[in-house]
């Protein structure tokens, strides 16, 4: 089908996998050629993860066969798959937070290796592929971008013939993406094939030779992404026409909702970022986009804004209140809403179900009757509304938060906050790991509440997202924030200059 496939490296034929009554993989066949970057496109729940788990030996298919390097291939475990030359970089980082980067890399290897030898090969890898990592830092102290680099090194160190990348760019900025693409192209040119899972259509056109599109567990077709527009590909993926959200219309008579002044805030850990010289204002019906490379102070700023961390040197004025010494709950009670980047642990509690997760962020006590009894009918209605409106794929409102896929939990969290109808909504990475259609929905919902008068701070490492819906943009670099500029006036090369200065 594709002229670039000279010879086949990996092939799967008629793979079937069912979970209960759900057909996660329905008769899937794909071919991956040598030195090919092959995209696997599909929405959340389309069956991409199931398929790659089968290839990586985490799951066994109900029926079907695979060949790899001209041999029958049916890995019984990831270890087995790695031994035969398949490596994988996971979407949800499979790293041990309390261990160091070095220990994590060591754990990905199947046999012991001298510490010095490993150090050397890691350094060789990071130099030739531009993957900078401080080996002695604890993963818990690293940003998402840095964590991913650790994962990539861990996979590459075993010299895989086929490398599976599960949504690798969902947390990266354009610059990090570019350097990742360079890495991947270099790898492909040196003979490694890559199975690239994503729903970011532009990067697939830029990077991949072939794209297999999955919908509802079955292959829709195989396409050449270079010959199609992102929109065409996207519509094939979701099976319906896509729309693009418009940024809110800024009117003139607006109230200032929030102003933040930060002189200097030191981080809690030695790997954190010092925030300095931050001065921002947000008005009604306005979206302020904050861009920047991961690990430049996004998390620290978010913590100051939510009240998870309080600092005396900070001035936060919300309408007429000084809120810098209020805790997150008190801030929520006066009309702020937050959606932090970490879905589990900050935004939601994994071991509570969705109803309970709605209940714990209920600043206006809508779900409480007199004497502290829970108003279950209201709570049910509210939660089910979020599930429906934001297209959260789950078994129901009583499903545990941890049972949802990352993208679906993200939809739930953002939906929950938006449905509080806040006057100020602060969100970090609203569409991380969310598929194209739902991402557009989430952005649309954010724009809608802005149009209804809410002020929004949108922290995101997805530059396209920021440019698409923000009225003003500022960039975080090394803990300080550039002066917010009107999005319409900003030029792409200026962004490059601001962000380029940082990534050096």
């Amino acid at each position, binding site marked *: 089908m594709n002229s670039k496939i000279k010879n086949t490296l990996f092939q799967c034929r008629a793979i079937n996998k069912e979970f209960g009554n759900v057909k996660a993989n329905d008769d899937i066949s794909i071919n991956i050629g040598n030195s090919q970057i092959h995209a696997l496109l599909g929405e959340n729940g389309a069956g991409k993860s199931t398929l790659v788990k089968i290839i990586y030996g985490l799951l066994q298919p109900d029926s079907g066969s695979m060949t790899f390097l001209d041999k029958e291939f049916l890995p019984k475990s990831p270890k087995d798959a790695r031994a035969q030359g398949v490596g994988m970089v996971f979407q949800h980082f499979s790293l041990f*937070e309390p261990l160091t980067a070095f220990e994590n890399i060591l754990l990905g290897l199947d046999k012991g290796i001298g510490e010095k030898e490993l150090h050397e090969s890691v350094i060789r890898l990071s130099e030739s592929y531009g993957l900078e990592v401080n080996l002695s830092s604890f993963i818990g102290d690293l940003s998402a971008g840095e964590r991913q680099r650790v994962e990539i090194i861990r996979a590459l160190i075993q010299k895989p013939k086929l490398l599976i990348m599960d949504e690798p760019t969902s947390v990266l900025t354009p610059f990090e993406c570019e350097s990742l693409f360079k890495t991947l192209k270099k790898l492909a040119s040196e003979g490694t094939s890559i199975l690239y899972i994503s729903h970011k259509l532009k990067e697939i056109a830029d990077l991949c030779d072939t794209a297999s599109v999955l919908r509802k567990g079955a292959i829709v077709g195989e396409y050449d992404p270079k010959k199609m527009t992102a929109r065409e590909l996207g519509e094939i993926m979701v099976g319906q026409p896509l729309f693009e959200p418009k940024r809110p219309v800024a009117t003139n008579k607006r109230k200032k909702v929030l102003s933040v002044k930060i002189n200097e805030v030191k981080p809690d850990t030695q790997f954190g970022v010092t925030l300095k010289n931050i001065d921002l204002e947000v008005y009604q019906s306005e979206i302020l986009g904050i861009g920047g490379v991961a690990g430049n102070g996004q998390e620290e700023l978010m913590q100051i804004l939510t009240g998870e961390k309080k600092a005396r040197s900070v001035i936060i004025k919300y309408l007429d209140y000084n809120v810098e010494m209020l805790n997150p709950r008190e801030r929520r009670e006066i009309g702020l809403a937050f959606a932090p980047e970490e879905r589990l642990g900050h935004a939601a509690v994994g071991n509570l179900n969705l109803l309970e997760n709605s209940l714990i962020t209920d600043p206006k006590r809508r779900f409480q009757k007199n004497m502290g009894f829970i108003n279950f009918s209201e709570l049910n209605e509210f939660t089910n509304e979020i599930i429906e409106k934001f297209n959260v794929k789950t078994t129901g409102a009583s499903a545990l938060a941890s049972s949802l896929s990352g993208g679906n939990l993200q939809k739930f969290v953002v939906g929950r906050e938006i449905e509080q109808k806040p006057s100020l909504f602060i969100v970090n990475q609203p569409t991380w790991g969310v598929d194209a259609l739902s991402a557009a929905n989430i952005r649309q919902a954010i724009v809608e509440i802005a149009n209804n008068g809410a002020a929004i701070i949108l922290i995101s490492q997805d530059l396209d997202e920021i440019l698409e819906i923000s009225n003003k943009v500022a960039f975080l670099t090394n803990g300080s924030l550039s002066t917010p500029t009107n999005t319409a006036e900003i030029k792409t090369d200026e962004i490059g200059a601001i962000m380029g200065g940082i990534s050096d």
Partner: protein
Amino acid sequence: MDLSEINFAVLVASLIVASTPLVLAALGELIVEKSGVLNLGVEGMMIIGAVAGFIVGVETGSAYIGMIAAAVAGALLSLLFAFIILIMQANQVASGLALTIFGLGIAALMGHPYTGIKSPQISTISIPILSEIPILGTMFFQHDLIVYLSLISVLTIWYFLTRMRAGLILRSVGEDHDVAHSLGYRVITIRFLAIVFGGAMAGVGGGYLSLFRVPQWTEGMTAGAGWIALALVVFSGWRPFRLLIGAYIFGGITILQLNLQAIGVNINIAVLSMAPYLATILALVVISMSRFRGNRGAPGCLGRSFVKTI
């Protein structure tokens, strides 16, 4: 009261002996907890080790064969725990408590005919030259084999956990079993081995009590040593050397209060006997208050059942 009646060198030597069962049992539990399992059955496994070791020791006439039996007995009892929590995925806290109660009961039953019987002869090993150093020789170099083995164990386990790949894998399973599973490590198998090792070490600790330290069999002779061992693991912040220091502090207080009782210090005996336990509580409070506790101590998945989700 005359404090000079207390011979300092002998005091140190006996505190080492008093601490050895704790060191052994706590080291075992350290490994178990590092794998992410909380086994509250240490006391039960210790007493089973004590009784089985004593019986076999008496019957064979060799304390060392008795010690091997103690290890086997502790390991066998821990198998029961491993089955319940790993295969049946029962609650670890409840299962551990049940194990302790079960162990205490069955040990009393088995040991009844052996109450008051003399234990087999044991000899101390004086390390040549070193043992002749005045004071220090008496303190450190005239002990039985097990004391030396316990010290070697501390070193070995430290080396295993911090320098060996297998130790890293064990720790990774305890920190995040889902990630370990997704990397292809066999969580259940690794935990199983850790639990059995912990059982054997607790058994040996118990055997040391009945064959070396006391040495005879009395019902309930562990007297909470298993619980102290559990507390020591927390006290140590899951670090072998700190664990050793903790055990010696506890053993020291035990011995000191016995000596103080012997020379007739004017403090209520009940208060003196309480001292080691009070010290444990105090140490735990101080440890959890102080800043240096470090969140990296407790394994991330401690006490959580592993359920395969994929």
